[in-house]
């Protein structure tokens, strides 16, 4: 079972991707702090949205640690990591409804929000849908072993992308909350 996509070895990509994301976020933070543009008419979300989003981020964190931590350490997920991951995955599917409903940009209401926030929200929802879709299709007797392996590869890369984009989106929300954007 090859965990590669386009011959890119997944295990070797995890740490560099995380580091690259953190570097990008750091650079963004520096840029944001040096070019502060506070908006008083920024779109404010309710408490339900915020709680759902926090739960969503916690879910992403749990799923990422259990998945990527296991892969880096043992090559694949098993035992309690697998139990935690599948438990978190269930919550992720349902929390995604709330996040997509409340954080996807909607015309004039969120028009003035930061561009990074808007684009990262779209990418977050789309890659999350891809991550969920690959697992849902694996749970029904549709794909054969080769298909399951390919779905797993896509799931891994989509999951990695979800985690990285979630970091960027969270940063953008924090930057807006702190008044930098």
């Amino acid at each position: 079972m090859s965990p590669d996509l386009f011959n890119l070895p997944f295990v070797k990509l995890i740490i560099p991707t995380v580091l690259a994301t953190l570097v990008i976020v750091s650079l963004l933070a520096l840029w944001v702090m040096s070019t502060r543009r506070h908006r008083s008419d920024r779109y404010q979300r309710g408490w339900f949205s915020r709680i759902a989003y926090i739960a969503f981020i916690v879910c992403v964190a749990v799923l990422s640690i259990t998945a990527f931590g296991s892969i880096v350490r043992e090559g694949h997920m098993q035992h309690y990591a697998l139990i935690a991951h599948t438990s978190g995955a269930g919550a992720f599917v349902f929390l995604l409804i709330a996040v997509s409903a409340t954080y996807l940009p909607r015309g004039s209401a969120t028009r003035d929000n930061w561009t990074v926030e808007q684009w990262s929200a779209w990418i977050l929802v789309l890659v999350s849908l891809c991550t969920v879709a690959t697992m849902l299709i694996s749970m029904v007797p549709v794909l054969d072993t080769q298909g399951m392996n390919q779905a797993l590869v896509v799931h891994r890369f989509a999951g990695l992308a979800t985690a990285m984009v979630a970091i960027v989106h969270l940063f953008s929300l924090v930057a807006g909350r702190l008044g930098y954007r």
Partner: protein
Amino acid sequence: MTKRYQVLSSIASFSQVRPLLRRNSSVPLLALLLALLAVDNLFAQNRYATSDSMAGYVHWIDLYDESNNKIDSNENSRPYSPEKTCGRCHDFKTIAHGFHFNAALPTANSDVGRPGLPLIWNDPRTGTNLPVSFRGWPGTHKPQDLGLSNWQMSAKFGGYMPGLTAPTGEAAQAPTGSIDRTKITGNLPIDCMLCHNRPGSGYSPFVWTEQIQDQNFAYAPTAALGLGVVTGNMRRLKDDVDLNSDEVKEQLPKLKYELEKFRSDGKVFIDLVRKPANESCYYCHTSASSNSPQGTRWQHDDDIHLRAGLKCSDCHRNGLDHQTVRGFEGEKHVSGTFAASLSCQGCHIGDDNSKSVGRLGAPKPAHKGLPPLHFEKLSCTACHSGPQLNDEIGRQILSSAHHLGDHIKRTGNELPAIYGNVMLPVNETGSPVDGDSGKYTPHRMMWPSFWGVVRDGKLQPLNPEQAYELVRKPLKIRKDFVDELSEVKLTLSQRKQILGDDKAARMKTEELDEKQRKLIEEAEAGERKKQIDDRMIAALKEIETAMPGSQAVYVSAGQGIVKTDDGKLSNLPEEKLGTLADPYAWPSAHMVRPAQQSLGATGCQECHGKDSQFFFAKLKPIGTLPGQETNEITVHELQKADIQRLAQWSQMFEGRSAFKIASLIAFALTCVITVSALAVNLSSSWRKSTR
């Protein structure tokens, strides 16, 4: 002058003519030697004529005895020798080093692959069931470690072996004190016809077994082939007999050939096949449920491969070298990767570069919806092979262990008790590991029972023959350890005392009323326990007297039974028992079920349920000692699985179907929300652009 001699001569003369001994004489000498070896090897391979026709060769052949004399049915009463007869046309020396024959050769056991069926030294007189193997698989005992000679192994197990190639040199020396009657009986011959006979030709493997039991080693191939009738046996000859004396010659077995089997020119028709028929394999390799002697065989289906028309030898192949492919994953074979193509994966799945996938018409399984992690945790046989999972692990009977083929009344519960299938995790070498690692593979298993001693803190089994000599008198056993040890007969005075009635005391137990019968049975049970305890203590004491400084033990069903200082029986602590009392397990395959009957075909909860038989099936070891109490074991204890984690994992499968539906709905809803948000944004952008 043969062509071989001409070529060799020319090479030799060439080196003489040319003054090659100039500066460095060793180089041309080495080249000469290599050339001679190469040529010799080339001609050795071509030494045997072959027909090379798919039609085969019709074997009207002369028979030869072990002295290479042609057998004349009228005058020569010596049995035919497969080595001298078949060996005239077939490279017997190469064949004799094949897997079925080479167990006693030290060089053959350097890489023995995964554990397999042991030879079970079963002695009903002493209650011994000891797994023995030349191969040295963990959990088995090597014959030389027990002080058993190759001859003893041949005499004990040769009835279910096609032959045994005798080692030479130091390896041929029998352990000190062992029984070795090779000078009387000869070595166990390799009988080609045991495998290569055509079913229905009249070859009887059971006759082979009978002759080996009579120690008529040399006569067995002839008798089994039906060429003649053998009367008498070597068994009655004493160890120190002089075979050259006239008196002894009269006592040797007599062979009378069937004259009608010989053609007018003295040749005999040997009805054989190149590829052994399944029936030939079955004689040594039958396994059946223990209730099949009660007539349940018709309820079991054949292996799916046999139904598809395959034969045993289609997968378990070999070339002239007779290194039969065993077919397990990761098998190292002299053919290199070819053997891998004959495993389950090799035929059905192959690898990315495999050109052999689909051979013999093997369908490629889709395994739709099965997470690939299962292929790392389960062998193919775990889901597809053997009896379906049950609440209780059943018992099985096997050819060599239970002497199937022998015409006796069988209940199926004869010892040794062999259980199967038990799912156990093993590593790449086939050694058991704990449940967190390894691949679950179905196994058969048995608990050994034997007499031994604890010396220097370590348990060692006794030589079974030595154990018999020590314990037979104190145990007062003639034939059967279990039956005779538990057989009690109350005296008349005892019955009078129990029943309080002289008339009733003289009646047969089955004629008494229920209350009286119960009294008698209780009394017999008490006497039985006392008898067993007294005789076992006496036997253990006898061993300790013969072996001062050691503690005698009888191992049975995972327990070590010892005598205490106050004259009672007790169990040896586990730390002293070590691993020798642990069950020996070996992977089982075959009896492959069709896909619709494979494990998990009805859903994930077959294995991932809270009471799944995969982890929670039970088995109760049968103690050889009558009245021995044993505890029921749940399979996960043998698997050393983390049962708490399993329970948590199983919980997640409850409501899984409902969760799938809810997740699909949630996914669809999210898609709708996403699309609607996209539509809103697009329309907003469009309106903005048109203003």
